């Protein structure tokens, strides 16, 4: 008899089995592969629903566990956490995942790597579900890395394109930086507390009596992981580039699930963060800054997917900010609604992109509303939800966060409000420019027509969710039964509603008359526009740091300068490592006698130490 | 120890050393003489018979002639090594002779100059040095034929050294000693080893031919190919030393063969099968030893004038593909036999 506990494992391993079957047996059979993959995720969704209901009814769900590692001093159990947090997350991941799987059927039709795509997708689902269900840090880290690998595979899916391969690599490398901080944090926590288990740690952590420094270090390192995965400043650079992947991938990984994993993880280890107020503050400000910066960059973007990508960054910043303020429930709430409407937006964009034969510049679109009514309608819903317009879900979740800020941190509130205004503006801009008015480029947008049912059906489903998900604050109540809305009167809420609407209005004003390009905005913002268009030059700054200074100067100055410039001048760890590598290679110059001398001196050094 | 005892000890040692030198210097020329006579006899002609009584003074005349010749050191040679080489050929043979059990004892005096414990090892250690002389001679002469001779000699000596060692291992296993005197005593008590270890004796004999660079293994000199090999550039006294060295080595080889396989100074019946108790038996032992050595020497000479020289690859093939496995086989057989006998 399968209990709910067994079902947990079934949810997790069904996608893995599907992925394995596809990789090993059905690579040449695209339909069978897709069926396997979709079957697995739909099954997962159904079971998740069952679990959700069980959790809602207060039934304890205990997944069978096995001792995975036993080192004597330390025991690691392979177990699953099924609580309200993970039950909700399961539902989001499998639900959004299922719609996107179906959508991919249409989007990827005819692609040479159709089967491979579904294989990778299933692998990703497996890894993501692993993160959600992880019961200890090690388990989480393993799936954390697996998610990285599978997203690397998906971003670089069209590896024939150099930019795609490059983007995949960038995502991977940037994530590694965050992950190593994460790993260090995990090891630190584990070694200090003697266990990696979340439940045990949560109980034990406050009682260990650690110094403030250790607490801050642990929390900070763990936060590093979230910074990488949830693309917070300064490791945010990979996410926009990751849009090189197929659009369903962007929707699934870079909007709904994977990037949210960082936020989910932070919520999971709330007890750890709360122990260090300094780090909480840092988290809040990191999130706030990311939100504002990304939103302002999005204002000037022309590529529809990039606009959505920066929007995602911005919303992730919101969630992280909420976590930093201790409002994890609100963060999860926003995560859930965001998953729905952002996936919806991405899929809508995908629908447009198919219709326009892979044209992504919004200033070449226009007038699509009439030709693609379903897509337009759903996109509109998504836009309004993202903007936070009542009574759509975004309004409730965003307001929950804003209200929490109002209680705790006014400067951040201002920041968040500005962001909200910008959000309204850029979304309206995209919507108006892409869908309304006349076709700006007849060649591109003239012959567009509505996508098939397999594409639009998911859109409609997600649109429904985007509308209803926030009603009655069901989700936060589910997460935390004692949750109650901060009551600040309807005037405040009206104010919050006014801000995005202002954004909408400004956009309508600027672009409503069928602007051919962005000249108006460019004139209006002046040099700021250039700055934003170039994403604050962060990428260039990194490039500059790594390439120009190092490469250029090193070419000029050999010898002593070499040490100064590479070793000290730039001061980067990378420079130091490169320099050390250069030194080592000078040692390994091939001269046998020098090898001998080196060895002898080394031995003598050791012996002098030993024989002291 | 009393002073006079020490002095007497030293005097005995002095006498023995002198005896060795005298005997070597006396016998070696007559070995040459013997070689010429046997050669003549085999070739059915008359050997040297003019100088002195039956030509017996011939070697001395030859020696005198050699000493009086002009000593030429060519310009292109490496001088130090060129001069060093002949000495290095001659000295090891002389040193080895000091270890030979010429007889049991003459009164209170042992007939062995240096009765060192593991004497056999010393013989080998010292004997290994004769190669240096030849190699150096070949190299320092700095010209083609000597060089080839030197290289051949080195290869040959190294190759056959292995077989000698292996063939003797069986002997050691049986006699349980490395001491030459003890080996002879063992044979005196248990019969000659040549009957018990015929294969070892055979191998040892062949290897000795190679080690002494004698025909059919005289490649380092190989008159027809290398003119005269490593000693081409030598003349006068230095050539004489090579000459002397070759025959001295031959003598040492013969003595070793006698000592190890043919019962040394013993004869298989009383009173010659035990160390001498009276002086005349001691003297007889010496005589027996010398006689046996002479027989083996005759064998050496006889072979030289009857068996043709091998080809060089045949020499190496013989050494590594025939003698080497045979030696190993011999050890195996000996081990099995000794093991069956219940651990000798």
């Amino acid at each position: 008899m399968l209990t709910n506990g067994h079902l947990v494992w079934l949810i997790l391993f069904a996608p893995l089995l599907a992925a394995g079957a596809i990789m090993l047996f059905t690579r040449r059979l695209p339909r069978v592969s897709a069926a396997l993959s979709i079957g697995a995720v739909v099954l997962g969704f159904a079971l998740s629903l069952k679990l959700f209901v069980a959790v809602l009814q207060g039934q304890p769900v205990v997944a069978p566990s096995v001792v995975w590692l036993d080192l004597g001093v330390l025991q690691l159990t392979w177990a699953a956490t099924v609580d309200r947090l993970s039950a909700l997350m399961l539902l989001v991941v499998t639900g959004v995942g299922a719609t996107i799987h179906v959508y991919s059927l249409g989007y990827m039709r005819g692609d040479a790597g159709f089967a491979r795509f579904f294989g990778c997708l299933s692998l990703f689902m497996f890894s993501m579900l692993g993160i959600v269900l992880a019961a200890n840090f090690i388990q989480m880290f393993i799936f954390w890395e697996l998610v990285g690998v599978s997203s690397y595979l998906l971003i670089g899916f069209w590896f024939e394109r150099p930019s795609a391969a490059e983007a995949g690599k960038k995502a991977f490398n940037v994530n590694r930086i965050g992950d190593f901080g994460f790993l260090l944090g995990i090891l630190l926590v584990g070694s200090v507390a003697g266990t990696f288990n979340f439940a045990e740690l949560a109980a034990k952590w406050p009682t260990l009596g650690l110094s403030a420094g250790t607490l801050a270090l642990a929390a900070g390192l763990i936060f590093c992981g979230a910074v990488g995965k949830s693309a917070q400043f300064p490791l945010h650079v990979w996410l926009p580039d990751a849009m090189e992947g197929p659009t369903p991938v962007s929707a699934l990984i870079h909007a709904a699930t994977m990037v949210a994993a960082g936020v989910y993880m932070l919520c999971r280890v709330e007890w750890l963060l709360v122990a260090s107020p300094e780090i909480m503050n840092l988290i809040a400000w990191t999130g706030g800054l990311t939100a504002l910066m990304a939103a302002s960059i999005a204002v000037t973007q022309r590529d529809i997917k990039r606009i959505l990508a920066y929007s995602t960054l911005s919303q992730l910043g919101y969630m992280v900010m909420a976590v930093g303020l201790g409002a994890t429930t609100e963060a999860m709430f926003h995560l859930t609604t965001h998953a729905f409407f952002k996936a919806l937006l991405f899929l809508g964009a995908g629908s447009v992109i198919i219709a326009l034969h892979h044209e992504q510049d919004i200033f070449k679109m226009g007038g699509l509303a009439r030709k693609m009514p379903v897509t337009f309608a759903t996109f509109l819903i998504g836009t309004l939800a993202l903007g936070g317009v009542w009574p759509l879900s975004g309004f409730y979740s965003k307001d929950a966060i804003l209200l929490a800020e109002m209680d705790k941190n006014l400067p951040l509130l201002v920041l968040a409000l500005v962001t909200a205004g910008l959000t309204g503006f850029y979304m309206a801009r995209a919507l108006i420019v892409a869908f309304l008015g006349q076709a700006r480029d007849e060649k591109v947008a003239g012959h567009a027509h509505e996508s098939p049912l397999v594409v639009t059906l998911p859109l409609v489903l997600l649109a429904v969710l985007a509308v209803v998900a926030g009603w009655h604050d069901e989700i936060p109540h589910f997460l935390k039964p004692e949750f109650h809305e901060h009551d600040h009167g309807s005037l405040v809420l009206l104010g919050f509603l006014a801000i995005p609407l202002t954004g909408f209005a400004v956009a309508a004003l600027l672009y409503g008359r069928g602007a051919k390009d962005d000249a108006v905005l460019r004139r209006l913002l002046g040099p700021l526009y250039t700055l934003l268009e170039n994403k604050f030059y962060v990428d260039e700054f990194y490039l500059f740091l790594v390439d120009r200074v190092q490469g250029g100067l090193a070419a000029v100055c050999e010898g002593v300068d070499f040490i100064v410039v590479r070793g000290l001048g730039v001061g980067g760890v990378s420079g130091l490592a490169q320099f050390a590598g250069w030194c080592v290679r000078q040692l390994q110059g091939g001269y046998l006698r020098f090898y001998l001398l080196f060895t002898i001196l080394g031995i003598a050094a050791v012996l002098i130490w030993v024989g002291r | 120890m009393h002073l006079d005892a020490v002095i007497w000890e030293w005097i005995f040692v002095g006498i023995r050393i002198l005896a060795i030198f005298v005997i070597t210097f006396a016998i070696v020329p007559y070995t040459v003489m013997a070689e010429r006579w046997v050669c003549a006899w085999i070739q059915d002609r008359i050997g040297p018979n003019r100088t002195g009584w039956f030509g017996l003074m011939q070697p001395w005349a030859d020696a005198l002639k050699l000493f009086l010749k002009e000593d030429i050191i060519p310009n292109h040679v490496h001088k130090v090594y060129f001069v060093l080489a002949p000495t290095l050929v001659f000295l090891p043979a002389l040193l080895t002779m000091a270890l030979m059990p010429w007889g049991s004892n003459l009164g209170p005096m042992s007939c062995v100059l240096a009765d060192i414990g593991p004497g056999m090892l010393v013989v080998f250690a010292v004997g290994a040095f004769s190669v240096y002389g030849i190699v150096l001679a070949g190299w320092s002469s700095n010209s083609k034929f000597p060089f080839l001779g030197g290289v051949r000699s080195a290869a040959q000596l190294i190759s056959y050294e292995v077989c000698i060692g292996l063939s003797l291992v069986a002997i050691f296993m049986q006699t349980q000693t490395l001491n030459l005197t003890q080996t002879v005593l063992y044979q005196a008590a248990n019969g000659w080893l040549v009957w018990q270890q015929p294969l070892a004796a055979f191998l040892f004999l062949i290897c000795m031919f190679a080690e002494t660079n004698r025909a059919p293994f005289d490649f380092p000199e190989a008159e027809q190919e290398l003119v005269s090999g490593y000693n081409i550039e030598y003349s006068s006294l230095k050539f004489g030393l090579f000459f002397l060295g070759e025959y001295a080595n031959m003598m040492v080889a013969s003595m070793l063969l006698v000592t190890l396989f043919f019962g040394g100074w013993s004869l298989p019946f009383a009173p010659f099968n035990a160390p001498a108790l009276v002086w005349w038996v001691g003297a007889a032992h010496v005589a027996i030893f010398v006689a046996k050595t002479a027989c083996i020497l005759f064998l050496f000479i006889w072979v030289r004038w009857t068996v043709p020289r091998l080809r060089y690859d045949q020499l190496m093939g013989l050494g590594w593909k025939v003698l080497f496995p045979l030696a190993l086989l011999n050890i195996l057989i000996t081990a099995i036999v000794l093991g069956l006998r219940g651990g000798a």
Partner: protein
Amino acid sequence: MMHVGLIHYLAVSGALFALGLACIVLRRNALLVFMGLEMNLNAANLALVAFSRYGGHAEGQVLATFIIAIAAAEVAIGLAIIVALFRQRSSMVTDLLRSLKG
């Protein structure tokens, strides 16, 4: 002057070892490098024998015996490699062996 004892032998052994090291660093000729290595092994042997003598245990000399045998094998291979190299490069200067580096 004190009587010769263990420490003297050890000092000689150390000096021989140092000479071996000096030889392998000083000389470019591969053969000389090998000779230096032989000196090292012999220095070790001397120390072993001296410790064995003065400590009263046989193991030192046993190990020395093995080391001598092993040294022979080592030299044989080393010389074979040198000969093979010489066939290709007509040189046994170790400083010229620099195709592997960096």
